[in-house]
């Protein structure tokens, strides 16, 4: 094996994440993320978005990567969570219809207590309702396989956008505003900090949950479904249960993320913000593929790289962003079909524990 720089880097990373150094590694990352809004204080909102993108990529990977069901439908839960959270935040204290009709004019003002109570309850419901929707829809369409499932879910986000655009109560096509941050509390600075830490808490919770999930029988069954669903069924696994539960878990986190994003943006519009399948919906697929499908860290790496690439391109070469995005997609698909993690795994399989064990097991069973 030629020891090039890439190998040394992979070696370094694998030592860093090994059992004895794991605690330091994770505390280092957490510490960095906790200090980040103070170090890069001009980019707080951007950093929050990065955390959200990582979360979307990680939850997309539960279906797209681990289970092999390419879904474009996760954006549905994102939008539903967003609308639900905002509606509850407002509806708990004021008439919702009048709020949306006033088009964001500040006729009603939340007190500090009301604001945080509303946000708390709103986020809870943004987490509870989308999984129920995922369960119901999943029961209907998770029987579809491969491309058929992908195409079917492609319609979900679009349909939801059109539906939301027709409901007057939530502002129809015009959209609605979320409650403004209480004035008495402080500047915009504080607002972005609060939401940054909420996003961080949610992401950490997601990471811990998924990490645990992939270590259980559930995670292994998801992989089995990806590799050969017929076989999994023939071996006595009720795959439908696993597929539906997996989607519900994703929907839970994506729903809450939607609720947070609605509040960060401050304005919810059905097609551009909530059910933005054209951008967010595609991004989550792209980020995961870039980082490496079916791995825990792939989506994180992919989303981080993608966000940095996107934002720097957006600000430096405005007008060319979609060209750049198109080129990026082509490069990913042609040169990194397995993503960054997949590429490394193919190059250095022994670093991922794939190796022939020359030693024979002390034979309990002898055959001649």
């Amino acid at each position, binding site marked *: 094996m030629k020891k090039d720089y890439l190998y040394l880097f992979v070696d370094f990373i694998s030592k860093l994440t090994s059992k004895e150094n794991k605690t330091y590694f994770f505390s280092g990352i957490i510490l960095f993320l906790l200090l980040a809004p103070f170090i890069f204080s001009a980019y707080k909102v951007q950093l929050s978005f990065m955390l959200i993108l990582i979360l979307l990529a990680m939850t997309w990977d539960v279906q797209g990567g681990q289970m092999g069901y390419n879904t474009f439908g996760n954006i549905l839960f994102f939008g539903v969570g967003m609308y639900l959270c905002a509606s509850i935040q407002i509806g708990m204290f004021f008439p919702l219809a009048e709020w949306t009709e006033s088009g964001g004019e500040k006729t009603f003002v939340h007190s500090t207590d009301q604001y945080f109570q509303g946000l708390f309850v709103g986020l809870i419901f943004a987490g509870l309702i989308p999984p129920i929707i995922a369960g119901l829809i999943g029961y209907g369409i998770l029987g579809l396989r491969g491309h058929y499932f992908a195409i079917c879910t492609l319609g979900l986000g679009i349909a939801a956008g059109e539906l939301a655009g027709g409901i007057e109560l939530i502002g129809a096509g015009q959209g609605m505003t979320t409650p403004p941050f209480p004035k008495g509390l402080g500047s915009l600075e504080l607002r972005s900090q609060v939401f940054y830490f909420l996003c961080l808490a949610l992401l950490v919770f997601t990471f811990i949950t998924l990490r645990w*999930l992939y*270590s*259980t*029988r*559930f995670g*292994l*069954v998801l*992989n*089995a479904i*990806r*590799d*050969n669903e*017929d*076989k*999994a*069924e*023939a*071996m*006595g*696994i*009720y*795959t439908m*249960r*696993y597929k539906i*539960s997996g989607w519900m878990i994703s929907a839970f986190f994506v729903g809450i993320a939607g609720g947070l994003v609605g509040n960060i943006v401050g304005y919810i519009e059905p097609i551009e913000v909530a059910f933005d399948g054209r951008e967010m919906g595609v991004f989550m697929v792209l980020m995961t593929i870039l980082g490496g499908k*079916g791995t825990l860290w792939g989506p994180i790496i992919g989303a981080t790289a993608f966000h940095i690439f996107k934002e720097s391109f957006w600000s430096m070469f405005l007008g060319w962003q979609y060209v750049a995005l198109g080129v990026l997609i082509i490069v990913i698909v042609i040169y990194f079909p397995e993503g960054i993690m997949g590429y490394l795994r193919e190059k250095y399989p022994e670093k991922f*524990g*794939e*190796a*022939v*064990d*020359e*030693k*024979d*097991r002390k*034979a*309990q*069973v002898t*055959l*001649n």
Partner: protein
Amino acid sequence: MSILDVNNVSKSFGGVKANVDISIKVNEGEIVGLIGPNGSGKTTLFNSIVGTHPIDNGSIKFQGEEISKLTVPTIAKLGLLRTFQQTRIYGKLNCVQNLLISYKPEKENINTMFSKIPKNLNDKAEKILEFVGLYQKRNLRAGDLSFGQQKLLELAMALMNEPKMLLLDEPTAGINPTLINGIIDRLIRINKEFGITLLVIEHNMKVVMQLAQKVFCIAHGQLLAEGNPDQIKNDKRVIDAYLGAQ
């Protein structure tokens, strides 16, 4: 005592009659062969038995219980398992994981869904891999194994599931002669030591003669003959339809 009782099963796909009134009886602890020309309906019969598609009429009983209306996973849970002609393994998982996931928990509920895989299963998986001769490759991705090794892996997966009866669809197809002997050995040991009843589709007559105590021959979707290997070898109809006149 018969473990599998297939009674007058028919299955047609549109105008194609794949199985017509087929009756097969397999006794507990036996190794039974199923032969017939290509396209004679052997795999269709397997699919009917394990519930891949509904049958048109007839009945299929496993351990005295009617299973023709049950779904694939439910039948597998009862202990009736099949392997595939084209190997089906979980290509991106390594061999040990392939086996771990094949283990059948006693109860399937939310607890077993989200619990860690028990540690002792690892040992069991390694023992079974040792049994089929894949121990050294246990950390490789299953998809990187050769076709023959994948067949062995599939056999190992079936053993991990602890079935009562195994339906094997051409276990030696596409495998070199040396390895074939190894597979025959193992199949006989599976039958003797693990007490698993085997129903084997096989084209290699030498294998069938070595393995089976009873053979069924199917041609054009109909049961042509049944009997012990010698009877089948000398049956005029079987020779005409399948073995070819000498």
